[in-house]
């Protein structure tokens, strides 16, 4: 009985406090402003022309100056996540298989995906009657933590679907675009 009376007192106190607060003029109500700021930020992010196309792909690339090409038709990133090798493609498809997998069955969906992409590119080029050399090169953004044994099955998959030209992607440091030196694995400098 005593508990019920104290609970009613608490409620009435809360009601009085709320009534008192609402009766005061509020000069600052931030949520419409914050909502506007968030909308403007989102719109700006979608309207900025130089949006990084590789955002959202987990591969961490090496910084290394190499020849710059326009984006390829078939591009995918490859990175080790936990016990798996995860591949994300430029049309947001995700494939994964175990790093220690000795079977090619786990890669079968990826191989079929590559086959469909190649057929689509061939059909597109035939309809357009135009083929660009850079478009037919498959670009692999391989994570720095990968070893060559992880890359081998992917190269075998490319060969299986008939892709003969591929490339490993690197991140070019902006300042090195104007210079002509780069670090070699031996630690020395080579000049292009």
């Amino acid at each position, binding site marked *: 009985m005593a508990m019920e009376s104290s609970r009613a007192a608490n409620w009435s106190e809360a009601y009085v406090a709320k009534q008192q607060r609402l009766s005061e003029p509020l*000069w*600052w109500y931030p949520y419409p*402003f914050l909502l506007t*700021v968030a909308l403007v*930020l989102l719109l*700006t*992010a979608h309207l*900025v022309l*130089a*949006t*990084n*196309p*590789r*955002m959202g792909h987990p591969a961490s*690339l*090496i910084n*290394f*100056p*190499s*020849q*710059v*090409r326009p984006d*390829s038709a078939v591009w995918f990133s490859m990175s080790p996540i936990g016990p798996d090798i995860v591949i994300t493609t430029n049309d947001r498809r995700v494939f994964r298989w175990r790093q220690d997998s000795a079977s090619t069955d786990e890669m079968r969906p990826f191989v079929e995906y590559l086959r469909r992409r190649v057929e689509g590119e061939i059909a597109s080029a035939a309809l357009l009657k135009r083929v660009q050399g850079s478009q037919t*090169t498959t670009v692999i*953004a*391989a*994570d*720095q*933590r*990968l*070893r*060559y*044994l*992880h*890359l*081998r099955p992917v*190269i*075998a998959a*490319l*060969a299986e679907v008939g*892709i*003969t*030209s*591929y*490339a*490993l*992607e*690197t*991140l*070019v440091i*902006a300042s090195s*675009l104007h210079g002509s030196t*780069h670090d*070699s*694995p*031996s*630690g*020395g400098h*080579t000049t*292009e």
Partner: protein
Amino acid sequence: MPAVLFGLFGLLTILSFGLRAVTLASVYGVVPLEIPLVQASVDDPGLHEYREEPQASLTQNSPAVVLTADAFYFGDLTAFSVNFSNVRDKYIIRHIDGAPQLQKLLEQLTSWVRERAAHQNIPLSKVLVLIPSGDVPVPIVTQVVAGLRTSPHFERIILSNGLM
């Protein structure tokens, strides 16, 4: 109130810079590689009589480089296939403190192919087969391929699956 507005203006400025930094496109480059094909020309008598011709070919004398965690080995393809047990047709350049000696490899490889062309009448091949071992990190493979492509003698690099 002016302090609040001034603070919000500053916050918006910082957010704009942050947004610009996040969405700014980086510059990406590629290190090209190739997978060899078996030549199988298809006759085209009806249209333009187009005929495919190979730009370069792999032969038993094509240079090959094996990259392991300890050293570079180079020779021709025969040295790493049918003559694998022969120790007199391969050359070794050891890594120093784990660092591949790419410049030294390029110098030795270039002088070797030039000497072969001059004295043994073996034509210079623009194709090089790189055979990395499985434990070599991909960034090292990428940099070695890029380094080899700086030589005018090796325009096309083929990554091999490994030694069988």
